[in-house]
């Protein structure tokens, strides 16, 4: 056996990536069936999807702009997930972070770069507070965090809308829309790829990926956090303060989502506008899952979702199909990603090709057995 083949066979990275790519392919296959059933031209849809996502400098810029907050919300989801918790309230944490950032950006006067840093930190802290609440309730009162994070999202969206509405304290008195004044020049992130809105926020997101990876896999605290996700009872016996870890995980998840909101304000919109997020918080759930809960994976999953989003606009514009097919595809991808046994079943149903792929690329241990799926570790909480 040559070293390369052995590497491919034994590398967990290749295996996980392979399963994910096959899942994406399967999801797109089902998406084609839906398009065909609805009577749309499949080649036209995919051509426009590609054109809108990667066809040229502006398209790529748009895709990356959309991927930026999704990287952070994906990290937010997966950090809590690694601790065995479900943060499905990143949307609300984003809103709270964004309003705090906007307030600092509009009303505080600070030197150039410092102002942006302080505004970003304010957004992160506000998000962390919004994540701390469900963490505290989970740890101390045993309240399901997926209900509370969801409910707090609705509260956050309502609350921020009130703050920027005509009679609210942060309202821009010259505007009809529910929005704040524009943040000062000193607080803005520089644009990278004009005329698109891509800004330094993507660098912040990339740094966050590294920091989260380092925290989870190279620090004691991160190790303990993952142990709680693997088995709270075992972690408890091992002397880990499980409740503290849960609060920490959800607070950090909130911090990341808050930073996503902050990045949108400082890099993209330059002010808080009600409804500024088209659902990047919810996208984070998909992004975290498609990344198979690995921080580095979010770079790719977020670009995939960002591409679907900007491709969807082009699909809609061209009239090939309703752009919302992109959301449908996103849901389908999750369905296949979370059930790796399906990929095995599909490989089996094409014996000749499947056998060749399995023999060459997959380990002797069967794909989808319990221990190779991080997603499954959460089941025994």
């Amino acid at each position: 056996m040559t070293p390369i083949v052995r590497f491919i066979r034994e590398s967990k990275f290749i295996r996980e990536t392979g399963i994910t790519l096959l899942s994406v392919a399967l999801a797109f296959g089902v998406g084609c069936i839906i398009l065909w059933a609805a009577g749309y031209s499949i080649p036209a849809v995919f051509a426009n999807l590609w054109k809108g996502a990667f066809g040229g400098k502006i398209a790529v810029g748009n895709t990356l702009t959309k991927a930026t907050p999704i990287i952070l919300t994906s990290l937010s989801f997966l950090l809590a997930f690694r601790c065995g918790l479900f943060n499905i309230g990143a949307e609300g944490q984003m809103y709270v972070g964004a309003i705090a950032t906007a307030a600092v950006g509009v009303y505080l006067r600070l030197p150039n770069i410092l102002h942006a840093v302080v505004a970003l930190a304010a957004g992160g802290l506000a998000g962390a507070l919004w994540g701390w609440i469900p963490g505290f309730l989970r740890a101390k009162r045993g309240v399901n965090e997926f209900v509370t994070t969801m409910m707090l999202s609705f509260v956050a969206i309502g609350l921020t809308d009130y703050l920027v509405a005509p009679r609210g304290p942060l309202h821009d008195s010259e505007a009809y829309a529910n929005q704040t004044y524009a943040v000062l020049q000193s607080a803005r992130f520089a644009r990278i790829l004009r005329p698109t809105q891509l800004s330094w926020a993507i660098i912040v997101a990339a740094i966050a990926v590294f920091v989260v990876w380092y925290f989870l896999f190279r620090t004691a605290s991160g190790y303990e956090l993952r142990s709680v996700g693997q088995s709270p009872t075992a972690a408890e016996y091992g002397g880990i303060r499980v409740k503290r870890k849960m609060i920490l995980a959800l607070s950090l998840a909130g911090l990341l989502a808050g930073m996503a909101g902050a990045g949108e304000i400082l890099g993209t919109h330059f002010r808080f506008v009600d409804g500024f997020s088209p659902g990047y918080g919810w996208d984070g759930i998909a992004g975290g899952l498609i990344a198979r809960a690995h921080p580095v994976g979010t770079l790719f999953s977020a670009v995939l979702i960002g591409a679907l989003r900007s491709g969807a606009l082009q699909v809609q514009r061209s009239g090939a199909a309703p752009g919302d097919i992109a959301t449908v595809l996103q849901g389908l991808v999750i369905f296949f990603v979370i059930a790796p046994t399906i990929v095995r079943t599909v490989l089996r149903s094409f014996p000749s090709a499947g056998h060749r792929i399995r023999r060459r690329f997959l380990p002797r241990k069967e794909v989808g057995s319990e221990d190779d799926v991080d997603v499954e570790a959460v089941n025994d909480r």
Partner: protein
Amino acid sequence: MSFWSTLGSIFTFPLLLATLRLSTPIALIALGETYSERVGIINVGVEGIALLGALVSSLVAYFTGSAWIALFASILAGGLAGGLHALWCIRFRANHVVSGIAINILVGGLALFITSAVWGFRGTSPSSAPLNTWIIVAAMFVLIFASQIFIFRTKWGLRLRVVGEKPEAADTAGINVHRTRYVYTIVNGMLCGLAGAFMFSSVTRFTAGMVGGRGFIGIAAMVVGNYSPVGALGAALMFGFIDALQMRLQTYIPSQFSTMLPYLITILVLAFLIKRAQVPAALGKHYVKQ
């Protein structure tokens, strides 16, 4: 206007009727979730399944013109979605919560895609023939009390509870664990489909945001009701009352505050009102036959 006359104009007979109507979908979802969690399957996809029920209702009502066929189609679609969730959780051993989230995202996308494809309006349908929804309200009460007896007073109820508490024991006693779980997860889906059909028929027009977190409030109602149908009804009536109240409060306080009231109250109730619920021991765990 004095304080008392203000109160008098809020607490009226229509408020009671509105409470009943707004409680109905929450109670149906909570009842469904009670069934599925009692057999050990968490389903947070109830939000999406209810939306699917409403969507199917609007489609079938539009193409057949019959509100009754639409109602049954919704129940059927809900059952299929519940079956899909069960398939993913049982056969493919996916994480229950994640599978539910996937349903929510997928249905959210489908709702926008299908409304655009069929009617050309993103996220809304034209209005259709009305249905006397009080029949569903009455059916909800019957279902709740029948389920209370079924779960706690019949041998099938005992079996379903054992499957959620101790699947190994159930298996030893000759109960088919997987089949039981499939059946009640499908029942959960059907009840959510019914809830969605009810939401659609109350306004006779589909909108993509029409469920608006009520699925999650239904789960909260199930937790507050401590995994019993009558308890779920009690909690649902409370949430329905708050929902009805907030609509009347909009005259007096900013609408942003009144609309967030049900969500805020849900958190407060979960945090402070309930003692530790008696969670089924095998909830969310996969059962592998030895």
